C-alpha cells in the first residue's frame, strides 16, 4: 500500500490516514485487492462524486504544491540543480540525514512492533497511561521536544552523558519524533488479528517462531512497512527538535533541512527546491522499496 503517497508535505496528515489504511487492509492482501480492481468499472454517480472530491482535495493540498516545488527547482536549469546537489556540504548533510533516518526506521520497526504487541496483547497496570504517552511526540511542538532532549542528553544531563552537538543527538531526536508511527499503524491491525488462527497453527504443531513468521508477520507487514515509510519521511524532514540539540555543524551534524533553510536565507530558492526535490525522490524510493518488501512478506500468508 502507498499511504498518502508518502510525500514530505503530506506527513502531517499521514498518521491518521495510515492508521485508516492499515485498518482496512488488515486481512490478507488479496482481500482488498479484489474490490480495488473491480471499482474501476463499477463507479456509481455517487462514488464518482466522492472520487472527484477526493482527487480535488488531494490535488489542492499535495499535487499542486509538489509541482510548484519541482517547477521552482527546475527554474535554474540542470546546471543549477547539479551544482546545488554536488556541493560537498550538501552531500554530507544528505548522507547524514538519510543514514540516520534509515537507522531510526530500523529501530522503530522492531521497537514499534514490540510496543504495539505489548499494548494489544498484554494487560498491565498503567496500560492506558502508556497509550496516551505514546502520542506525546506527535503532540509536542518539535522545538519543545528539542529542549526536553537537550536537558536530558545535553551538558547538564541527569544521565551523566553529553551528546549535544553530536550525531548521537541527531539519532535520538529522530527516534523521539518518529516513535509513534509504527506503534499506531500496527496496533489496529493487531487488534483485528484473530488469535484462533495462531492457536490453530500451534495445534497443527507449528513452533512459536514459525507461527510468527508465517501467520502473524505477513498480516502485520503492510502496517509495519507503512509505519516505517512514515517514520522515515518524518525523520528526513525533521528540523525543529534539532535546532538546539544538534549544533548544525557542517560536515558533522548538519541535516538536510538546515541546508534548505540556509539556501532560503541566502535567497537561493532554486537551490532549496532542488534539495527538497531530492528528499522527495529519496522518500519515494524508500516508500516503494518498503511496499515491495511488504508484498513479498505478505505473499507467505
Amino acid at each position, binding site marked *: 500500500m502507498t499511504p498518502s503517497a508518502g510525500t514530505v508535505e503530506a506527513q502531517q496528515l499521514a498518521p491518521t490516514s495510515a492508521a485508516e489504511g492499515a485498518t482496512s487492509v488488515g486481512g490478507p492482501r488479496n482481500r482488498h485487492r479484489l474490490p480495488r480492481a473491480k471499482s474501476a468499472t463499477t463507479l456509481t454517480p455517487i462514488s464518482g462524486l466522492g472520487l472527484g472530491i477526493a482527487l480535488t482535495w488531494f490535488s489542492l493540498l499535495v499535487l499542486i504544491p509538489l509541482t510548484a516545488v519541482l517547477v521552482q527547482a527546475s527554474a535554474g536549469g540542470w546546471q543549477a540543480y547539479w551544482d546545488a546537489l554536488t556541493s560537498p556540504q550538501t552531500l554530507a548533510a544528505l548522507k547524514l540525514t538519510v543514514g540516520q533516518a534509515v537507522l531510526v526506521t530500523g529501530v522503530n520497526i522492531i521497537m514499534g512492533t514490540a510496543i504495539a504487541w505489548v499494548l494489544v496483547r498484554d494487560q498491565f497496570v498503567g496500560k492506558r497511561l502508556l497509550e496516551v504517552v505514546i502520542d506525546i511526540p506527535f503532540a509536542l511542538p518539535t522545538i519543545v521536544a528539542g529542549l526536553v532532549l*537537550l536537558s536530558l542528553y545535553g551538558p547538564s544531563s541527569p544521565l551523566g552523558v553529553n551528546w*549535544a552537538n553530536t550525531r548521537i543527538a541527531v539519532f535520538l531526536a529522530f527516534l523521539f519524533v518518529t516513535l509513534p508511527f509504527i506503534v499506531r499503524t500496527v496496533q489496529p491491525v493487531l487488534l483485528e488479528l484473530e488469535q484462533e488462527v495462531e492457536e490453530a497453527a500451534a495445534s497443527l504443531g507449528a513452533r512459536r517462531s514459525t507461527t510468527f513468521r508465517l501467520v502473524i508477520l505477513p498480516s502485520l507487514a503492510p502496517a509495519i512497512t507503512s509505519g516505517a515509510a512514515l517514520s522515515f519521511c518524518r525523520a528526513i524532514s525533521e528540523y525543529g527538535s534539532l535546532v538546539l540539540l544538534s549544533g*548544525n*555543524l557542517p560536515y558533522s551534524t548538519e541535516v538536510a533541512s538546515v541546508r534548505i533553510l540556509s539556501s532560503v536565507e541566502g535567497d537561493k530558492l532554486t537551490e532549496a527546491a532542488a534539495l527538497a526535490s531530492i528528499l522527495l525522490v529519496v522518500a519515494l524510493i524508500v516508500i516503494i522499496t518498503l511496499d515491495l518488501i511488504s508484498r513479498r512478506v505478505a505473499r507467505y500468508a
Partner: protein
Amino acid sequence: MSIRQLARVRAVAALIAAASTALLTGCVGGAATAPDAAGTTTLHLVGYAVPKEANNAIQKKFAETPEGKDVTWQESYGPSGDQSRAVLNGLKADYVNFSLEGDVTRLVKAGLVAEDWKSAPTKGIVSDSAVVIVVQKGNPLGIKDWSDLTKPGVKIVTPNPASSGSARWNILAAYQQVIANGGTDAEAKAYLTKFFNHVAALPGSGRDATNAFLQGAANVLISYENEAILARQAGEDFDYILPDATIKIENPGAVLKDANPKADAYLDFVLSTAGQEEFVKKGFRPVIAATPIGEVVGANNPASPFPVPPKLFTISDLGGWDAVNAKFFDDGGLVPAIQKATGRSQ
C-alpha cells in the same frame, strides 16, 4: 486503543485543526480588513523580534505627539530574513525594522521601498549595537579578547551564519579584528580557521545560540551587546566582554513606498532623541549622538553603558554587504571553505 477510540481522537484532532485554522484566518483577516474607527489610522509594523519592546515603547511615546494621536498598530515579529520575505510576498507593512540592511535591500529591489531610503543622515539605520563575547559568570577562563578564544578548552557557540543573517556580524567581527589590529588577510583567515575549530554549535538564530549557551553547551557565546544586556535585564546571570576591536552592528528601519504618511512621521520620531531613548533602555546604542543616555540596567557599567571600543569598525570598512557576502558567505566563499576544512577534521 480501540478503533472507535482512535476515531474519537481523530475527531478531536480535526476539531483542533479546524479551530486553529479559523483562528489563523481570523487574525489574517483582521490585519487586512480592520475597519478604522472614525479618525484612527492603523499602521503595520513588520520587524525582527529583538527590538519589539523598544518599538512598543516608542509607539507609546509617539501616540502622545500630535502626529501619533489615534494611531493603532498591527505588528508582526519574527526572524529578520523571514519577515523581509513575508513582506516581499505580500504581508502588509508600512514600516519595517530589520536586523540587516540586506533585508531592506530585498524590498528595494522588489520596488516596495524607495531607492533613496538611505538618504537620511543615519543612512537608514535606526539602532546600533556591537558584537560582544559572552562568558560564564566570573569569567572562569579569564577571557579578555578575541585571541583568548582559540586557547585550549574554549568551546564557542555562535548562531549559524548560513541560516541566520545577523549571525554574520559575529563572523565578520572575528575576522576583521585581526585586520584592525594590524594583521594581514592571511592572518585573519588563519584566525577564523582556529576560531571555527573551537565552535561547538551553530544554532539557528541568535536567541537559540543564547539558549544553547545557557544550557551549558559551550563556555563562550558570540552575541550582540543589546542581546546580552536584554538577557541580563531578564535575569540571566553571565558576563559579557566588549573587545577592543569589534564591529558596529547597524539595524535598518524603512518606510514602504505605498505606506500611510503617518509612517514617515513615525520613522522621524524613531530617529528623534525621544525615540532613541527607548532603544537605549533596551541596550541598543543610539544612532543620534545627542540622545541622552540614562542608566541602562544589565550593562557592565549601567551608568556608562556604551563605552566606544578603540577599534570599532563598520560594515562599510569591509566593503559593504554585497562584497562581504560574496567574499565570506556565498558558495565558494571563505566561511564555507573554512567550515569544510574544520568540519572534515572534527
